[in-house]
């Protein structure tokens, strides 16, 4: 009760500390959400592609980071291995796409529309029917002012845009889909296959399948491994700066609450001193200060979480290529971390209280 009254006596100060925590929580949630958005985008293709494992060139263990080339012999033989229900070939190539003076990364996937491995959701148009056609990511196309029926130049060939896909932006650009033949021509590599999307027959033993693929001179890599490795790659790029920014935001939250609670404690030094003289123990006084910090931190975290969700929506509407994913678990963790903020923020004021001599209140 005393904690709340002390806080509410100075609404501006309370507002400041709540706002400080809110800003810090918004930052943390958006940063963490941005990171999970990046991860979700990075695994979107594999999440939606058929099969549970990929055959890749020996030694290749990630999907986005390295180029994989399979020998034609491997492609033929994997399909006939016992335990393989389907092996869908795809060709992948990272290209830089330039249009209207704007450069963008494009992860080009060559696939066979009859077998799969292409876009999983089209916002408009259709899948490519000839080797002169391409499906672009809808958001990237919009940014370049490209619409259905337009022709774009990739490497040295013109392709007609026949479809716009959804959910296919990712951390360093966007995805595009064409027929395998189109990529063979573009890359001047007839017969080129990068990966096989493998669906094992029900009940097939994955270890023996792995051995079989290995004896062919290639690797069978579970999707989950590829996704994890892609994430590790991303983590190397993103985790340090995002982690640093989250840490800074966290520290800002602590400092704001700490400063506000500390000044309010110092201001009421005599009152707390009198309470000590009257017989309040340090614990009772800590509780008052910690409760103040807790109230400020929780109010701040609550409003911060609401603002972050609003901000998430706004950001994604404004810049659809950013995917920010704030899930309930993240919010829970961040709310819990605001409790930690309160605990740390009340340390210094608590020390100030502990050092208060009860006899001091009698000195003028």
């Amino acid at each position, binding site marked *: *009760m*005393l904690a709340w*009254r*002390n806080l*509410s*006596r100075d609404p501006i100060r309370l507002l400041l500390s709540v706002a400080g925590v809110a800003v810090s929580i918004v930052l943390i949630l958006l940063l963490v959400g941005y990171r999970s958005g990046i991860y979700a985008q990075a695994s979107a293709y594999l999440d939606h592609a058929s099969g549970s494992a990929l055959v890749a060139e020996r030694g290749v263990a990630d999907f986005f980071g390295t180029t994989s080339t399979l020998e034609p012999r491997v492609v033929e033989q994997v399909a006939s291995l016992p335990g393989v229900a389907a092996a869908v070939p795809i060709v992948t190539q990272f290209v830089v796409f330039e249009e209207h003076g704007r450069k963008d990364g494009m992860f080009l996937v060559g696939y066979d529309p009859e077998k799969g491995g292409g876009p999983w959701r089209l916002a408009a148009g259709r899948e490519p029917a000839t080797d002169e056609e391409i499906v672009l990511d809808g958001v990237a196309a919009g940014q370049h002012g490209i619409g259905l029926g337009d022709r774009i130049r990739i490497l040295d060939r013109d392709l007609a845009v026949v479809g716009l896909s959804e959910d296919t932006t990712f951390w360093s650009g966007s995805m595009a889909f064409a027929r395998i033949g189109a990529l063979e021509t573009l890359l001047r590599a007839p017969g080129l296959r990068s990966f096989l999307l493998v669906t094992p027959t029900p009940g097939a033993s994955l270890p023996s399948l792995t051995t079989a693929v290995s004896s062919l001179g290639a690797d069978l890599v579970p999707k989950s491994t590829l996704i994890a490795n892609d994430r590790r790659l991303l983590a190397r790029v993103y985790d340090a700066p995002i982690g640093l920014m989250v840490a800074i935001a966290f520290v800002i939250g602590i400092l704001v609450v700490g400063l506000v609670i500390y000044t309010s404690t110092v201001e*009421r030094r*005599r*009152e707390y*001193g*009198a*309470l*000590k*003289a*009257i*017989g*309040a*123990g340090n614990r*009772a006084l800590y509780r008052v200060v910690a409760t103040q910090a807790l109230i400020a931190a929780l109010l701040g975290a609550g409003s911060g979480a609401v603002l972050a969700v609003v901000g998430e929506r706004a950001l994604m509407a404004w810049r659809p290529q950013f995917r920010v994913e704030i899930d309930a678990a993240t919010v829970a963790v961040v709310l819990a971390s605001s409790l930690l903020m309160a605990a740390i923020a009340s340390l210094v004021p608590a020390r100030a209280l502990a050092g208060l*001599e*009860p*006899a001091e*209140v*009698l*000195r*003028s």
Partner: protein
Amino acid sequence: MTTTLAIRGVTKQFGHGATSVEAVRGVGLSVESGEVLLIMGPSGSGKSTLLSIMGALLRPTAGTVTLNGVAISQLPERDLPPVRLREFGFVFQDFNLLAALSALENVALVAELTGTARAEALRRAGELLTELGLAERVAFLPDQLSGGEKQRVAIARALINDPSVILADEPTANLDSSNGHEIMRTLRAVAKERGRSVVIVSHDQRIRDIADRVVWLEDGQLRDLMTMAVDPVCGMSVEHDRAVTLEQGGELRFFCSRGCRAEFLGELDGPAETRPARTGPLASLFQAVRPKTP
């Protein structure tokens, strides 16, 4: 009457070496239940230090403090808060009420510190404030109360846990004289009606008459009352040896300075406001205790 609080050979030294101060030197005192003890002395004489030691706020450098037979000066620090909370009630010069809480809550909070349930604490606080004539003021914040009302809230706060001893440090210093007198009467009533020991520290001459006993502190030592006198003009306490004296009609008067003596003579001459002639310290010190007014 039984002795509630007794101190023996109490000395308090602040600091060490050349800069150390002996604020209290070898003081012995005791207070009975129902007694009002007034500790007087000039500023800096060690009154607050002595009161802090009596109330277990400060540990004496030497000597013992005994409360109801228990040597509280020997207790470890962690055992002291409950003693302060239940056995002592403090009243301060600058009130020190919690600004964020109402009068009622200020009083109830101290009961809650002992583990009393909120509702019961509020009920008792309400009763006490009503007894002290503050029934209409219970919901007011300290800022909305007058000085005298604040001090009465502070007295209620000091009484809520039914302590053995009430300790008041200059309780009237921030009050005008009528409010000051009211507070003193209240403190006296606390001693007489509730049988509490009341120790008041003050250098305010106006309140001597409500005390059952007055002691003088000077340079941290109790002085023999016989050797102390009060300047009838400025109210300062002076030692007989050092005082400027005036013999008049067979009576000896003591002044702190020639100026005061001159002023005293001047006033005696003048027709306006004549100060009551004093016959030395004892007469006023042991003047019959003013009857309690309800």
